[in-house]
């Protein structure tokens, strides 16, 4: 019996189990401290809906054999441009949101294609190169945000300045358009129905995609490129597709993220975004070469809940705010843990 429990524990992954236990302990502490549990849960749910699609964006990369997509900021930039274009023309509400998604998706295809071609030239180094692609594009865009001919006064610096602001409010456009869609409350917990639904729908589409011939070709390439080639698949092509898919999902993901967050953040904001997202997937139990929809959902739920409740609980006990530090330690630590090849199930 003891052995069985231990075995289950190991299969679930020791790191993951510790983190889940930690979350539970935090909840107990929060109850002991008489904190607003309903509010904490509402915040957690909002964060889950906000980050879900970004985490999902990593899946095609892992499946397709390009590893964890550290080049996520590339897709994020595409999403930001998509939003800004619509905002420049004062497209608000649903039309603004949909236009942002479509422009973001279109740019994502182009950028992802180029990214995929680049990754084909550096096989085996995808994660390292991806990280630098992310850093480079963010820095490059820091210039462009200043130079692009945006003129809507809501977007550019006040008092006739030039260039886009660092943080732009979505209040006049489509704040929480998804979060508020059909949202409801039970036991004082607000359910951001639209965002969660959107996340679940995308998970569903992606899982269907990987049951199609196209998706299975991508997955086969990731599992064994030589096998794929022997079955008439061009591995270079499928690797490009997986980069495109990942980039497009990242672009859509940031639009969803920002509508919930309420602001568009430019300049260096996307720089380190890939890291906590990757940590999400890894906490869910994924490995560099293996990830499933379950990993995506589980990871998003565990990690986002942890971030939400760690902040108020720790500050209630310690007095200071160590949540940001904790976030960085946990997210980078879990990436290191996964990259070092510590495995749960397959070991």
């Amino acid at each position, binding site marked *: 019996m003891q052995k069985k429990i231990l075995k289950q524990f190991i299969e679930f992954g020791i790191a993951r189990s510790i983190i889940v236990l930690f979350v539970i302990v935090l909840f107990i502490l929060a109850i002991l401290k008489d904190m607003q549990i309903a509010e904490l849960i509402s915040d957690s749910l909002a964060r889950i809906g906000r980050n879900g699609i970004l985490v999902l964006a990593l899946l095609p990369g892992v499946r397709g054999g390009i590893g964890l997509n550290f080049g996520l900021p590339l897709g994020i930039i595409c999403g930001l441009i998509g939003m800004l274009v619509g905002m420049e023309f004062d497209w608000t509400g649903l039309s603004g949101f949909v236009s942002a998604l479509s422009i973001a998706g279109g740019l994502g295809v182009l950028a992802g294609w180029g990214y995929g071609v680049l990754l084909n030239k550096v096989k085996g180094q995808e994660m390292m190169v991806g990280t630098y692609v992310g850093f480079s594009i963010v820095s490059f865009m820091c210039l462009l945000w200043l130079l692009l001919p945006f003129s809507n006064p809501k977007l550019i610096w006040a008092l006739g300045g030039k260039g886009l602001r660092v943080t732009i409010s979505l209040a006049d456009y489509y704040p929480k358009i998804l979060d508020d869609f059909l949202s409801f409350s039970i036991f004082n917990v607000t359910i951001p129905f639209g965002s969660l639904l959107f996340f679940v729908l995308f998970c569903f589409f992606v899982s269907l995609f990987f*049951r199609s*011939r196209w998706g*299975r070709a991508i997955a086969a390439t990731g*599992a*064994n490129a*030589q096998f794929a080639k*022997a*079955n*008439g*698949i061009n591995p270079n092509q499928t690797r490009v597709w997986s980069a495109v898919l990942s980039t497009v999902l990242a672009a859509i993901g940031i639009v969803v993220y920002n509508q919930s967050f309420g602001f568009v953040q430019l300049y260096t904001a996307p720089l380190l975004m890939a890291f906590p997202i990757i940590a999400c997937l890894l906490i869910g139990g994924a490995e560099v070469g293996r990830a499933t929809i379950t990993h995506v959902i589980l990871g998003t739920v565990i990690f986002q809940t942890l971030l939400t409740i760690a902040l108020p609980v720790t500050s209630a006990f310690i007095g200071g705010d160590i949540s940001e530090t904790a976030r960085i330690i946990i997210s980078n630590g879990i990436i290191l843990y996964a990259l070092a090849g510590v495995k749960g199930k397959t070991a």
Partner: protein
Amino acid sequence: MSLVLELKNISKSYNGNPVLKGISFALQKGEVRAVIGENGAGKSTLMNIIFGMPVIHQSGGFEGECLIDGHVVNFQKPQHAMAAGLGMVHQEFMLIPGLKVSENIKLNREPLSSKSFNRFLPGKLKVIDNEQIHKDSLKALQKVGMDLDPDQLIKGLSVGHLQFIEIAREVDHQNLKVLVFDEPTAVLTESEASQLLNTIRHLAKDLGIAVLFISHRLDEVKEIADTVTVLRDGELIGNYRCEDLDKKEMARLMVGRAVNIRRDQEQESPNARQNIMTLKNFSVRMPGENLQDIDLEIKQGEILGIGGLAGQGKLGLANGIAGLMPASGNVIFEGQAFSLNDPKQALQNGLGFLSEDRKQTGLLLDESITHNICFTASHVLGRFQNRFGLFDQKQGKEWAQKMIKDFDIRCTGPEQHTRRLSGGNQQKVCLARVITANPKLLFVSEPTRGVDIGAKKIILDFLRSLNQQGVTVVLTSSELSELRVLCDRIAIVASGKISEILLPEDSDERFGLAMAA
């Protein structure tokens, strides 16, 4: 006679599943004992017990006694077993390519220099005596009958050489008493294999080392072993003197049913048939297996054998046609020009290809048997799709179940990942995948390499019945006996050319000469 190794009533179970039941035998000085059995019969587990591999202790140890020189031993680590005089020659080579032959032979046992300053250096920093390494390894190489410069790098040596260096490394142990060979000839050509057998005989008879010889090739067992231990499903079927058994009897004891692989009589001369594929000036660039400007006609409905020694180019043909290795030349398939270097086109035109490299090219190791079997047909022909264009689990599973039954694939079910299957069963999955796509012309390379005799029979029988249904088969194999049993014609490849096309009835000398070319 002195007993060096004795096993008494060894039993072992994993999680309550018995894998070995009451195995006993004794090994004398200078004796060669063959241990034979199908894959999964328990041979590897038995060796793991003798060597005290960690996997045994982690899973609760074993029952029974293991004696060396009359003393009961229970090794906790393989290093202890080696110190006690046991040695093992692995199936996969464990040599470091960037080091010299001599450095590999003496690795981790390097003699230390006798220079005076060496005394002052702490343990691991002591200087090594390179001259002694050279001398020792030369001696070890001579013992195994190998004329090789010990200063050469491992990199670039042939597979045959590597095997002998592995043996030399074990022989270099001063107190070597028992040497275990785990399918040593699986990767060797026939001439290398016979040299290896001579070496084993020399080690046993002249140096008095007891040998445990694990092999699937019964010819070799018959040739070299004094005694034979037969295992089946973890049970000891018996210990026999080798001269009391013939090959048929051995095979029967191993599988528990008579194995009979024989060729049917030819009805029609293959030369009278039409060509299904014609190759002109066909060249393939495949590292170690180049083909240069060959001409070849493949007849409709025949089984064409491609034989030859390793490294001569016989594997290049199938890989070139399948589009996995860059090829050039003129190829006509069913009267139409055939586009080379296009694997997809090849598959769509009705070609099938079973690669010699099972794990790298043949399988998705972390996917289910169902996905593996259905992959080619689903991807190339669009089968196993439901009306939304998605993979149809139910249809795929049904088909996989049928294949599992037809090929007798030993597994826990169609959902099992192929990584967990034994070599023979993996090969059956590969073959099932290839034929699910209904090929008209099937290229099969080394289908029985590393496969036990039961699976081998199923695979070869299946190829013949496929051929009787009208599929043309091109069978590439290093086992000449297999080619002669199955094929209508056998093309022998030597130095990247086809040296001769022979009939299976032709004499051994003609085959030998063609291979040497």
